[in-house]
């Protein structure tokens, strides 16, 4: 049973993560691995496109908390796009909507980082 897949692609100096399925204490390792892969590649501008994310439990929020300090201390950020009502609601219950910027579209989230540095 594949509860979660996490694909990624680059958009300039922003890395986009596409979790598809749900993140709970069982599937969270895949999500953590995707975040750590971006960090290890020094890709600190991260957009998590939540369009395919049906649900996130505290394990997933914990994974973000575990990575955010390193991301921000390196001048980056972790931002979210296209979260459905369920996922938005979970963020709001915990007050995470004050910790993470959320955008209604992927394009807005990418643009929020400003022009790509080093772009031609």
């Amino acid at each position: 049973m594949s509860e979660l897949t996490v694909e990624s692609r680059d958009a300039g100096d922003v890395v986009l993560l596409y979790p598809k399925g749900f993140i709970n204490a069982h599937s969270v390792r895949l999500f953590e691995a995707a975040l750590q892969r971006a960090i290890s590649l020094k890709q600190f501008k991260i957009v998590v496109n939540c369009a395919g994310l049906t649900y996130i439990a505290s394990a997933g929020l914990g994974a973000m908390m575990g990575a955010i300090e390193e991301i921000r201390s390196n001048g980056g950020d972790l931002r979210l796009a296209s979260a459905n009502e369920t996922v938005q609601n979970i963020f709001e219950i915990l007050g995470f909507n004050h910790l993470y910027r959320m955008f209604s579209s992927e394009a807005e989230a990418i643009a929020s980082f400003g022009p790509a540095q080093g772009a031609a």
Partner: protein
Amino acid sequence: MRPRLVSARGEDARRKPPAPARGRARAKPALVLSLPSETAYLGLVRELTKRMAEVAGFAEPVAERLALAVDEATTNVIEHAYKGASDREIELRYEDRGPDFRVELVDTGQMVDPRAVPRVDLDRFVSERRTGGLGVHLMEKIMDSVTFRRSARRNVCALVKHKDAKDAKDGEASSSR
């Protein structure tokens, strides 16, 4: 170990069937599920809880939140009471009590004092890179009541949600009874 439906009629092998009530409305029988302490079953727990909440009359968004609370409670049992051991047993008991929807989780693991779980402080979470305590915080935010008790060497976590009209499915009363 595979999940085992102990009973959909309240006849748990370890409990006596409830005696017929006299002079008052009988509670609906509980649905009881026994499952292994493996995180692989959390998806099943979530789906079942959502369906049970919908059957009890909650609208889908509320049922989703209740499913999250029970997912978190189950995760807590696996990670804390059983310390990650996957060969133990968790019993989930769903009861539609008319005005209340109640879910009990029973385990035979180590007693965990919920008062020892630090309260969530988001600023400290960021500065101290803490990730624990979110589950209990979510449970308390979602449910009307979250209680823990130790009884006969078993831990019982009871989650209760009152049926308010605003949480009900369209066209249903605040109580599904």
